[in-house]
């Protein structure tokens, strides 16, 4: 008696194409008793019968075809195609030969040379570094680095401004009131004060930083003083000069300038 396993093995053998569905013995008996294997057998048989029917269709379709005539037609088409293929290169060769005949050949050669020369020149002209300056490489820096650089520059400018201011004030304070008035009226102190006022305008932006607060305050006071000196240059009397000298001393401007300057020098960037 065949088992379901035998049945499945036989089924696999048939599907592998090694035997026909009728081959296994005892198949029908087993399929009659086992419903599942019976369904498998019916399904397989339907597929194989359907395939057999398709095979029959092919045989019917082959009837009535003029096979001899068809072979002749295929051969005609094939050899006609070969003749066309063989003729085509000759025509193409003729065309190219005519196109590059000696009178035209020189024209084409000149055109080609012009194109090559033009392309070479353009490439030379447009190449960076030959006639064009190469584009500068973009600088990239962090915001923190830029802040530090700006502060450092502002500090240096402020120290320079304070040095020059200190020198001017020392010259002014250490002179007698008459000599101080003369130096302003004569133009030397007045010119130096105007220069420092111009420098202060340039310095203003750098002094906005919170770390430059002390420097900003002292520079603003000095600026007012220099503004007076510049405005009074033509009519400064010895008495007025003495008042300015007292103002400088009362406010300890020179001392404060020194302190701020030292702080700026010692501050880390």
């Amino acid at each position, binding site marked *: 008696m065949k088992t379901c396993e035998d049945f499945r093995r036989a089924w696999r053998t048939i599907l592998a*194409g090694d035997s026909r569905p009728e081959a296994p013995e005892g198949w029908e008996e087993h399929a009659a008793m086992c419903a599942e294997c019976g369904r498998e057998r019916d399904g397989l048989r339907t597929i194989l019968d359907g395939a057999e029917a398709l095979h029959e269709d092919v045989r019917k379709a082959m009837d009535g075809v003029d*096979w001899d005539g068809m072979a002749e037609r295929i051969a005609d088409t094939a050899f006609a195609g070969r003749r066309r293929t063989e003729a085509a290169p000759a025509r193409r060769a003729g065309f190219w030969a005519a196109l590059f005949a000696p009178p035209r050949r020189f024209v084409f050669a000149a055109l080609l040379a012009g194109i090559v020369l033009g392309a070479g020149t353009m490439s030379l002209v447009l190449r960076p570094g030959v006639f064009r300056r190469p584009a500068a490489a973009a600088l990239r820096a962090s915001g923190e680095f830029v802040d530090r650089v700006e502060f450092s520059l502002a500090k240096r400018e402020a120290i320079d401004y304070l040095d020059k201011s200190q020198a001017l004030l020392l010259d002014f304070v250490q002179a007698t009131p008459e000599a101080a008035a003369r130096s302003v009226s004569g133009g030397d102190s007045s010119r130096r004060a105007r220069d420092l006022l111009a420098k202060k305008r340039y310095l203003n932006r750098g002094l906005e930083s919170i770390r430059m607060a002390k420097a900003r305050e002292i520079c603003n006071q000095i600026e007012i003083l220099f503004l007076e000196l510049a405005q009074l240059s033509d009519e400064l009397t010895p008495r007025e000069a003495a008042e300015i000298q007292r103002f400088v001393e009362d406010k300890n401007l020179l001392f404060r300038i020194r302190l701020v300057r030292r702080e700026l020098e010692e501050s880390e960037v």
Partner: protein
Amino acid sequence: METGELVRRTRAGDRQAFVELTRLYQRKVFVLTYSFFRNKEDALDLVQETFLRVFERLDGFDEGRNFEAWLLQVAKNLCIDQYRKLRSRGRDLAAETRVEELPIADERTAGGERSVEAKQILARCIDQLAERQKTIFLMRHVGDMGNEEIASVLKISTGTVKSLHFKAVRNLRALMGPHLECSS
């Protein structure tokens, strides 16, 4: 005259040799092309296309190879190309009726009609198989080719042919399953 000699003479430009070569194999090519399209005109066009293609490439054919296998391989490739074209154009290869609508389980249908409908359903299900499974099933059952012959045409091992055929039938069984159960 043997195939090798016909091939040599065709290469040399002998038209009659090519006619003989075509006569010798055109029916076999037709079986393959018809099994793909189940349409006589399409199948005949593909037979002609196959022999023209073979003629074009005959100069590059290695005489040590099996000519028949090479010829059927060309035919099979053309069939697959054509099949893809038709599929992309949305042309249905079988009947317009959907497989689910075919009345295989109709008890009123007479026996003869019933086998015709089963064939239609099978044809529709074959079209749904993967390309290689479909080719192998058709070559084996409709083209009446053996496993070795199929293997040489498709350039795969006999074991692969068996395995793909097994998968093809199993998938057909699954695709036709509802209809088979209803009819039983």
